[in-house]
Every structure is written in structure tokens, then in C-alpha cells.
């Protein structure tokens, strides 16, 4: 059993601010020792912080693997910073390959954003790279991870908190981090190759003669006719993943201690490579107070879906002896579990996994088809399929695409009627019977700093081919457009509409900026985010003020989608040049 770290107490390992030579450094900082990797994390803080990237064996819930770890643990240490203060982060590479750290959500000079090939050359083996951050311009919950190869899947990630310079508008008696991620004994390159070669390789919830899905024979023929799978919810699943809470498998029994009546703040970070989670605490209402590091007007919910790379801070006021925190993978193939416990060892029941999720007409880009039935029940399987003319349903009508979308083998579907889906709770949560957070529930707590209307708009299509496992923006994989970045003028305000022409949800992340979701909140309170989920077959829209100069990565945060090509560079031109 593990007791989690109460992050308000900073009594744990701090960075070696004074360099006392090798002897004074802990083992992980000297690196190369390659001992077993610890689960869970310490905290580092101060004006100078040392991080060392190493590798070693790890065992999770009885399964063994080889992992990359920072400072000897997975997740790596909680990096705790202070708004208004500068910080120097020294990252030593003890691996046999290049590495990097990207500070996810931090506003930093672009050359310290940590993306090899975009912002800097990467960190060579044996080298120590120094990130010199000027006074931090923000507070909130963030995280960090490798942007080199597929290292993130192998354990190279950790939480990051910036404490506000003034009083925190969120008041809580306890302040905990809940970092969700995955463990797999497979090498990340093996996973990538399986996805490329074996269609739906990791899916063990496929339709079959003996399944219990509410699909008629006509439904099944329709899906087969489209050469698509209604069960295509997650590419990599619980068939190989053990879902982790702060590095711990469900059987490890991660605990967060509280006294009844206390107000507990949970900083939920989705640090996984490929998983969306549905988070709930049965019997406890959750108040969402922050999204992607930015305070929002409090929203009370029973459940929320967190996409890869998103963060949500919630406040709960547990009353019972124990409450289970359930982070169920979106495809329902597994869960990460922790407990809010009023005394060590207290436990509440762990609910079983809910039924697997099926895609619907809406997820196929036929968003308007459900107005015939007026509600979700009209979508997909509940609809009398015999009445629908499937022959007439063109899943790939490329005539509706803008001219800059490349039509080719990399594009297997075009959303015919991609409706705005920021009011959707996420796949599988539309009929759950209790309040689930949607983007439309979010509004900024503090007024935004740019009141201008966008001067232009642009549309970016999220494109892919499931069968070939190709993923791209506008039909073009990154390797085809590496020299043609998306260009913005400095301080330009642009409305960007992301249209999802695939049947998968993509968490799209822009580095170095926050954008404002166009979600119906008044313009000064549109919520700011660094990552936005675009639901399958639908769209999401944000307003962006391009006020951070430099080149920035813009990509799907599903690691293997990024690696398959769903990546671009956004260039914000400086009036004076970058230096």
C-alpha cells in the first residue's frame, strides 16, 4: 500500500541547488546506476532544479518492463515552481539516445520549449541542457514530458505545478496530484509497428457473432460496408496497458488521506500516451475549478472525461470513511484507481467497468442525422437501420473539403456534416444519467486579456486512415509539410476551426500558447486551454492570439497519432526577429 505525497508539505527531496560534487548527489542524479525504477514521485523546487533522465527495469503489478525514468521514478518528480520567479532547469541525459523535456502548458521562450527539431537540437547522450526560464507568467497545474521519439510511453513524464504569486482563489485543506498514465511491458516501437501492421491489434472488444452489443444485423452490415469498426474507441487498450495513478497500478492501493469535512483539491493530469479517462468518485460531487492550468468558474459535476494531455483541478468535500476515485479508460478496457481515505487502509467498493462504447452516426460525421429522433437514442444502433438508405450515405465525399486538404490514401473518411461538438461530454458519456462536464460548461474565472474580434479564420481538418494507420492535418503527414509551417503574424488574432474527418477523438495541443474555446461563454470569459479534444466527426473552434514569437509544435497528443504524422509547426513571426 502506498500513501501519496501531500504536496503542500515540501519536506521531500529538493533539487541540489549547490553543486557539491558527485559524492553529494543522490544516485539518480549521477545516473547510469540503472537500479529498479520507483513508482510514485518526489518533489523538486527552488531556483535551480536538476533532473536526470535514466533508464532501468520496472515492475508494475507483477509485469516487468524496461523504462525511461527521470530522477529514478515514474512519474518523474513533481516540479514545483512559483509564479513571477525565474527558474533554471538542468536536464542531464543519462540515456544512450537523445532526449528532451517539454514543459507542457508553460509560457516560455520558444527555444526552451523542448521539442527537438522545432525549438532546439535535443539533448545528446551525456549532455546536460540548461533551460533558463525568465519570471514565470502563470500559475496552475501542468506537466512535463519527453518530446523525443516515443519516450513518453516508456515513463518519461511528470507533474508540474506553478504556485500563484498572490493568494490562490482555490481554497483547499489538502492539495494532491493525481497523474494518470499507462504502463506496458511492450517497447513503444513494438506498439507503433503493431498499430501499423495489425488493424485494431489491441482491441479485444471487437464486434463478433457472440457479442452483446445492441447492434442489429443491418447495423453490422452497414459498418462492414464502410470498412469501419463501431468499436474503434482506443488504439491501444487495457489488453496491454495497466492504467496508473501516480505510477501505481490499481492493486497498489494509492491513497489520499483526508479528514471528513475537509476540502480536498485534486490536480488531475492526464499524462498518458494514448488514453482518455472518465473520472468519477461515486458518491462524491466534484467541483471543477481549473482546466489546463487556468482557473474556471466552478462547475459541479459527477464525472468528467479527460483527454490525453489535459489537466483538470477539482475540489471535493468527502464525508464518508473512504471513496474510490475511478479513472476508467474511455473504451472501458481498464481503469486506474485510487482512494480518498479518512484513515490509512480505508476502502470503498470499486465499481465494475461499464459496458464497452460504440461509435454512432454522429461520430461518423453525420451530426445532423439525429434530429430526426431528437436525441442521442436516435443515433447509430437505436435507429431503425432498415429505414436508412446506407447506399446513399457517402462516407468520403471529398467535394465538401477545402482545396488545401489533400485527398489521397491518407484520408479514409470525410465528415459530411461536422457539427460543433464542444457540448458533448465525450464518447460513451452521453446517456450516463448524471452530470458530465462538457467544454460548454467552462468559462474563465479571470477576464481574458484580448478583447479583439478575430481578423481572419482558418479551418484545419484532422484526417486519417485507420486501416493504414496514417494520421495527418489536412491530409498531409508532417514529413510532407515539414517546410511549410502554419503561419501567423505576431499578435494576430485568428479563429481556428478544427474539423475532425476521422472517427476517433483527437486531443489537439498547441505549444507556447493558450487559446480560447469559442464555447458560448461571453468573449472575455471564453475558457483558455492548451489542449482541445475534437470529437469524432465533429468540430471544435478556438480564438488564438498569436503573441508568442517563434516556432511551436502543434499536434495530436495521442503519441502514436503524432508519430504517424499528425504534427505541424506553427510559426509566429516576430516584428523584430527572434533574438
Amino acid at each position, binding site marked *: 500500500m502506498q500513501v501519496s505525497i501531500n504536496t503542500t508539505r515540501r519536506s521531500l527531496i529538493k533539487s541540489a541547488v549547490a553543486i557539491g560534487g558527485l559524492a553529494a548527489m543522490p544516485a539518480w542524479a549521477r545516473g547510469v546506476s540503472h537500479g529498479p525504477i520507483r513508482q510514485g514521485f518526489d518533489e523538486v523546487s527552488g531556483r535551480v532544479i536538476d533532473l536526470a533522465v535514466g533508464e532501468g527495469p520496472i515492475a508494475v503489478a507483477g509485469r516487468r518492463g524496461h523504462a525511461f525514468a527521470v530522477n529514478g521514478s515514474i512519474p518523474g518528480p513533481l516540479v514545483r515552481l512559483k509564479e513571477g520567479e525565474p527558474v533554471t532547469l538542468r536536464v542531464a541525459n543519462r540515456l544512450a539516445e*537523445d532526449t528532451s523535456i517539454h514543459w507542457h502548458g508553460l509560457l516560455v521562450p520558444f527555444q526552451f520549449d523542448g521539442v527537438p527539431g522545432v525549438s532546439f537540437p535535443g539533448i545528446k547522450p551525456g549532455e546536460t541542457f540548461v533551460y533558463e526560464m525568465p519570471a514565470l507568467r502563470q500559475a496552475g497545474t501542468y506537466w512535463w514530458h519527453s518530446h523525443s521519439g516515443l519516450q513518453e510511453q516508456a515513463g518519461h513524464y511528470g507533474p508540474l505545478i506553478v504556485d500563484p504569486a498572490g493568494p490562490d482563489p482555490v481554497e483547499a485543506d489538502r492539495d494532491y496530484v493525481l497523474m494518470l498514465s499507462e504502463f506496458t511491458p511492450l517497447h513503444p516501437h513494438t506498439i507503433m509497428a503493431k498499430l501499423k501492421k495489425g488493424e485494431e491489434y489491441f482491441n479485444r472488444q471487437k464486434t463478433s457473432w457472440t457479442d452483446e452489443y445492441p447492434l442489429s444485423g443491418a447495423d453490422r452490415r452497414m459498418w462492414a460496408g464502410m470498412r469501419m469498426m463501431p468499436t474503434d474507441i482506443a488504439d491501444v487498450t487495457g489488453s496491454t496497458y495497466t492504467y496508473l495513478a501516480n505510477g501505481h497500478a490499481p492493486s497498489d492501493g494509492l491513497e489520499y488521506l483526508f479528514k471528513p469535512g475537509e476540502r480536498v483539491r485534486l490536480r488531475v493530469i492526464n499524462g498518458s500516451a494514448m488514453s482518455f479517462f472518465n473520472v468519477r468518485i461515486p458518491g462524491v460531487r466534484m467541483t471543477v475549478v481549473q482546466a489546463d492550468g487556468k482557473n474556471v468558474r466552478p462547475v459541479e459535476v459527477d464525472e468528467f472525461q479527460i483527454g490525453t494531455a489535459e489537466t483538470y483541478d477539482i475540489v471535493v468535500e468527502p464525508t464518508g470513511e473512504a471513496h474510490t476515485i475511478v479513472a476508467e479508460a474511455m473504451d472501458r478496457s481498464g481503469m486506474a484507481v485510487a482512494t480518498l481515505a479518512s484513515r490509512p487502509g480505508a476502502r470503498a467498493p470499486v465499481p465494475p467497468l461499464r459496458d464497452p462504447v460504440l461509435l454512432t452516426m454522429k461520430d461518423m460525421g453525420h451530426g445532423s442525422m439525429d434530429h430526426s429522433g431528437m436525441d442521442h437514442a436516435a443515433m447509430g444502433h437505436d435507429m431503425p437501420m432498415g429505414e436508412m438508405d446506407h447506399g446513399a450515405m457517402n462516407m468520403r465525399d471529398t467535394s465538401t473539403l477545402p482545396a488545401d486538404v489533400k485527398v489521397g490514401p491518407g484520408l479514409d473518411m470525410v465528415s459530411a456534416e461536422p457539427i460543433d461538438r464542444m*457540448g458533448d461530454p465525450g464518447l460513451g458519456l452521453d446517456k450516463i444519467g448524471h452530470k458530465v462536464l462538457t467544454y460548454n460548461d467552462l468559462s474563465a474565472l479571470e477576464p481574458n486579456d484580448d478583447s479583439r474580434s478575430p481578423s481572419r479564420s482558418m479551418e484545419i481538418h484532422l484526417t486519417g486512415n485507420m486501416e493504414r494507420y496514417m494520421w495527418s492535418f489536412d491530409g498531409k503527414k508532417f514529413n510532407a509539410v*515539414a517546410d511549410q509551417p502554419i503561419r501567423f503574424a505576431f499578435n494576430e488574432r485568428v479563429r481556428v476551426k478544427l474539423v475532425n474527418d476521422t472517427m476517433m477523438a483527437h486531443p489537439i495541443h498547441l505549444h507556447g500558447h493558450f487559446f480560447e474555446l469559442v464555447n458560448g461563454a461571453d468573449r472575455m470569459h471564453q475558457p483558455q486551454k492548451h489542449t482541445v479534444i475534437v470529437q469524432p466527426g465533429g468540430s471544435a473552434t478556438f480564438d488564438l492570439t498569436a503573441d508568442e514569437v517563434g516556432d511551436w509544435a502543434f499536434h495530436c497528443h495521442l503519441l502514436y497519432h503524432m508519430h504517424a504524422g499528425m504534427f505541424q509547426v506553427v510559426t509566429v513571426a516576430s516584428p523584430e526577429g527572434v533574438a
Partner: protein
Amino acid sequence: MRTVIAFAIVAVPVPALAQHEGHGQPEGEKPVDHSAMDHSQMDHGAVAATSGGPVLQGLKLDIPKPPEAPPPAAAGSGPPRAADAIWGAEAMRESREALARENGGMTLFWVQGDRLELRSREGHDGFLWDIQGWYGGDIDKLWVKTEGEGEVNGPLEDAEVQALWSHAIGPWFDLQAGVRQDLTGPERTHAVIGVQGLAPYLFEVDAAAFVSNKGDITARIEAELDQRITQSLILQPRMELGLSAQDIPELGVGAGIDHFEAGLRLRYEFAPEFAPYVGIEQEWKLGDSANFARLEGEDPSVTSVVVGVRFWF
């Protein structure tokens, strides 16, 4: 202090009503979108009922959509690559190339033994292989196929190998062209052109036409379908059709439909990459091919019980 958030901005219901007008035209494009409205209003109600908070979302602002336009001239004014100005172009070159190669440009190597089986037909035991593999990227691949059969402890009856260039011509199909070399009988080399891919209703299809160095034209169409019984147990119907434009007596091939095969294999995937199977296969030689077979003292209609393994890596 029990206030979750000391927020300065409390309920502002007025804009919500203001926004309500004209929200049937979100962003001024798609026609009225009932589904989106229904959702948002449901959410709206639910939130109001549960939190009593100031949340008023779900109604799109009535802002006219700004024009879709190319970036202004100022967007092109900076250096082509910002990092070069800091770290130097030479220092960036390697990582930049690696990034492009990794994010979309990868190459892979794949081998699949689709059928590797022993066949028992009326007392004669035979074997068959049908293996293919490729090396390449998403669009272009070098594709190699080999298949053949023979009798256990006997001679090879048929064996061939094909080397093809494969090019993706759509989301689901590749065009393949190259050469085929026959390894048994009267030696033949063929030019090959074909398509391979996934047809509607999830049929795996491989169709090819061959022109031999003797000028003979033949064709072959194969189709398979995976019927999942459970997550691991799969029934696979398979059919193969051989066509010929002319009689080729030395090969025992007759004009028209030369042969037709229909098979049914039941396999169990211990892992997706490794699945033993049992099955039954029926082959008919038709027309002149049947006559050629009879002249050879063979039965033009043969039923085989098969046991084998399917694998890939």
C-alpha cells in the same frame, strides 16, 4: 473558509439571453443544427439545476465569422526557422531531419504467412504455403509473394515467387506491378499487374493479371473474409478464381474459368500474430482444365481437409 472559490464574477445571466438570438447560425455557416442546440440546452438546464452556478454556455456567440484568408504579409516576415537564429542551422539540421522522418515518414517490414498448411485429400498428403511480405512506407512498398504446393515426400507441384512494387491508390487499395517467376514445370516468367486491399464488407481482395514470356494471359482473383465468432476464434471463408485467355496445354490450363476454389478455415488467435487453424478446401477444375486433368489421370474435383497456421510479424 469553506468557499471553494472566491470568484469575483458571479452570475451574469443577461448575456445568455442576448446570445440566444441568432444562435441558430453558429459561426454563420451550417443550417440550423437542432442536435447541437438540443445538447447545449440540455446541458444548460442540467448545470443550472445542479450547480446553480453562473454557467451559461452552450449558446454560440453571434459573431459574424471572420473571413477565411491567407496569413497577412507580416506572418511571412520572420526567419524561415526560428531555432536557427538561436542554435545555428547546422546544430538544428539533424534533429529537424529526424523529426520529419519520425513523424510520418517511417518504414516498416512485414511478413505474413496467410496459409501454411498440410492438406489431406483422399489418402494423399500434401502441403501448401502462401506467404507474403513487404518493406516500405505508407504509400510505396516492395512487396514479395510466394506460394506453392506439393506432396509430402513427393515433388513440388507448383511454386512461384512474385516481386512487386506496390503503390497506394486509395484509402484501401494498392496497385501492384512487377514480375512473377514460376519455379516448377515449364519455366515461365510473367509480367504482373494487380490490385490488393480491403473491399467493402471487409473482404480482403487480391486480384492480378499475368502475361507470360510465351504471350499467355491469365488472371487470378482471391478473396477472404474474417468472421469473428469470439475475440479469438475466427471463421474465414476464402475463394480463389483462376482465369485464362487461352488453352495452355503444357500447364494443364484451359481457356475461360480454369479453376475455382472455396475454403473455410477456423482459426484460433493465441495472439493476433499466431493462429493455428483447421479447415476444408474444395477445388474444381473447369472446362478444358478439367479435361487436361482427366488426361493426367487426376480428379478435376478435389476435397482437402487442411490444418495449418497463420502468422505475421
